[in-house]
């Protein structure tokens, strides 16, 4: 490790967290009145905004619509000011298209699309500040937005990243840890059933360590699901108080 020590001898990480500790998550739902559902989520310094429209009539060519379920259309974008170096294209590059596809696959596993045949559900997510775990912040924000829109889902989808440093799995990596060149695994989980919606790992890892790493990511996802749960319940109570008076 050149200069940077990702995990100190005392077991603390760069930002002072323990190995399994998550970053602080703050979230709000119904941030826009115009959309059917929306949410804003901060996971440490990573900030994401998600907006959901639908289900509505399929836009564009009708050949895209499916006769037995709804089409989920995802668009991922990053604000030009979200990274240290200013971005040229906020969306449409190769990386964003891949992310959009991953988000689409994740939510096809969770949303009960068969209830809305021949229609379309749009999910737009934007990263306002990128500090590692962009995919997971997007998934968590989009889950809140879908719940806010009242779109039926099997379960929440919670996503979290996990890394592996000096034989220890680290949960919820920040940008410095992610760019260190080590292993990073992204996992999207349906926490109550324990089903995995998406699992992605781009680096090499010894097979013996994989189970420990997945276990760490799953624990982190379950922790996150409690936070999302609190946000949803709090919002429901606020709305019911407002409408009753």
């Amino acid at each position: 490790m050149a200069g940077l020590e990702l995990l100190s001898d005392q077991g603390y990480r760069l930002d002072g967290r323990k190995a399994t500790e998550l970053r602080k998550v703050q979230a709000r739902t119904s941030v826009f009145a115009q959309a059917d559902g929306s949410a804003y989520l901060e996971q440490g310094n990573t900030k994401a905004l998600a907006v959901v429209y639908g289900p509505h009539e399929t836009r564009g060519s009708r050949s895209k619509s499916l006769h037995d379920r709804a089409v989920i259309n995802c668009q991922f974008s990053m604000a030009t000011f979200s990274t240290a170096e200013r971005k040229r294209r906020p969306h449409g590059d190769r990386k964003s298209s891949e992310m959009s596809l991953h988000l689409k696959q994740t939510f096809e596993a969770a949303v009960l699309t068969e209830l809305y045949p021949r229609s379309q559900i749009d999910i737009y997510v934007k990263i306002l500040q990128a500090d590692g775990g962009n995919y997971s912040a997007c998934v968590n924000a989009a889950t809140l937005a879908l719940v806010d829109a009242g779109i039926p889902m099997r379960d929440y989808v919670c996503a979290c990243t996990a890394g592996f440093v000096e034989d220890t799995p680290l949960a919820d990596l920040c940008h410095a840890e992610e760019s260190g060149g080590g292993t990073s695994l992204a996992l999207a989980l349906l926490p109550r059933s324990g089903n995995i919606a998406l699992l992605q790992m781009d680096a090499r890892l010894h097979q013996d360590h994989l189970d420990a790493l997945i276990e760490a990511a799953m624990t982190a996802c379950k922790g996150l699901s409690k936070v999302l749960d609190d946000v949803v319940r709090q919002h429901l109570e606020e709305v019911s108080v407002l409408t009753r008076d």
Partner: protein
Amino acid sequence: MSPMKLCVPGERLCSTEDCIPGNGTYLRHGSIFASLAGYVLRKNEGEELPVISVVRETEAQLLPDVGAIVTCKVTSINPRFAKVHILYVGSTPLKDRFRGTIRREDVRATEKDKVETYKSFRPGDIVLAKVISLGDVQSNYLLTTAENELGVVVAHSEAGAQMVPISWCEMQCPRTHAKEFRKVARVQPEYLQA
């Protein structure tokens, strides 16, 4: 009113032996789970098991379904079909418009081959219709007005006045007394609001 129980998507509500799954729920492994965030509502209907459903403060988006009676507005006509915008499903307004088609052969039940779309609808008419299919790759929602209760309910004459129905196939303008052809609906009294 007693405080109702909150629930979130994925939460187990009860077993299938206790309740029948309703709106906002789904079945898995013999249990009923919530698929929406909202309040749990149990409704007893006679001797049968209560129906359990999840209700929300704001009504969820509704989609036109096969067999549903919809209210639509005619946007364009040609000799083969009339194009419409679906505005209501039953009595619930839709948030955004869905497009639909009423084909010539679906306008009325008798003498289908003699139907002329120009003598049945005009752009701007408000029509009651029934959904017969969600359509295929080329087409939108397919609708029919081949029932006495279905057809034009509100139409304006060339003079701009709202016309009065005089038979099942004719309407008259109260200002000019000119008669125009329409496929008129015999509106059931329960649909008429005071």
